[in-house]
């Protein structure tokens, strides 16, 4: 149980997907403008990521390893992710057209969200058990959402600020992200040993 808790907290804060591993930068820059879309995107990513790591774990251990097909790992994983995103998109379109409108182009872009494929790859290289993989995917998605929300809050505040023209938009977001990364590094002292 402590093992799972450790994975949860370290993925959420200490080794945050966005700020430590640079995963999910494209949506991070694109969707963090408004708090509502950040929440929607965060939820969608968390959902997809949790499912993706779980399903990938099953396929990896039950099929790829058993049949010595490890070299198909990347192709299979990305197919799983693409299908999951397709299903989530259909689900959202049916049940919340408002959210669907808000997320717009970003929904299919979750497929290319490196965070999801990254989560699956890390799970494999760290040899997590099934339960650990589920927790890992869930906390990875939450960590992404957390940073996305914080960034959205900051950016909404910055909208009224007087920013030099060359810095407006992406450069400012990147620099803010850099400062956030520095701040999150402070979490590394949270446990005496991980």
């Amino acid at each position, binding site marked *: 149980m402590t093992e799972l808790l450790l994975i949860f907290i370290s993925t959420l804060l200490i*080794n945050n997907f966005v700020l*430590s591993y640079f995963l999910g930068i494209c949506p991070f820059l694109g969707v963090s403008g408004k708090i509502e879309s950040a929440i929607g995107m965060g939820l969608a990513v968390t959902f997809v990521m949790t499912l993706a790591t779980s399903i990938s774990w099953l396929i990896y251990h039950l099929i790829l390893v058993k049949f010595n097909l490890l*070299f*198909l790992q990347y*192709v299979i994983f990305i*197919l799983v992710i693409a299908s999951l995103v397709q299903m989530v998109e259909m689900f959202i379109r049916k049940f919340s057209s408002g959210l669907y409108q808000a997320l717009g182009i970003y929904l299919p872009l979750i497929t290319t969200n490196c965070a999801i494929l990254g989560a699956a790859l890390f799970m494999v*290289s*760290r040899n997590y058990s099934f339960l650990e993989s589920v927790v890992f995917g869930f906390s990875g998605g939450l960590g992404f959402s957390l940073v996305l929300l914080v960034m959205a809050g900051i950016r909404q505040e910055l909208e009224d600020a007087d920013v030099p023209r060359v810095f407006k938009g992406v450069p400012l977001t990147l620099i803010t992200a850099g400062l956030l990364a520095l701040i999150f590094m402070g979490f*590394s002292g949270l446990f*005496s*040993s*991980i």
Partner: protein
Amino acid sequence: MKETLRIIGVLTSVCLVCAFLLALVYSRAAEKIEVNQNQRLKTAIANLAPGAEKVEEVSLGDSTIFKLSDKKQKLIGYAFLAQGQGYQDKIAILAVIDVSFGKLSGIEILESSETPGLGGKIQETDFLKQFKQLPVNNGLECVKTEAQADGQIKAITGATVSSRAVVDTINKKLVVLKSEIKNLK
């Protein structure tokens, strides 16, 4: 219906062609990849145990251990791999220990993605030399001050997590191996 069939057909054919191509490429390269991985291990063992002429891989419970013998076929020690989570990502360690499992000859870091300049220093001689000829009878302990007792390792300033990770990883593996070693003898 015809459209759906076409969709499924194209997707499946593309996947099959790709899978075939990959199988081809992989089969040509698989051997070389394995050689590379073994080479790394061999070089590390050679660095830590220069007298070892023969390296024999044996399984010990769930783990593998390497028996090191000199040119007279006499057993001079063991080598083992240990892996654990560091600050950033996993750390893979190769350790060489004496025949009685009482003293480490030394360790080498095979894989680490720790923060350069901080945790990355676990790969430097200053940290690693502490593990040379280190008694492990009571396990290893990572301390922040100067090492005073046997089995104590001084952590790198500003990289306590990485230093502790190395020590904990070795300790955990030693516990596992020690419990199984009776089966080997």
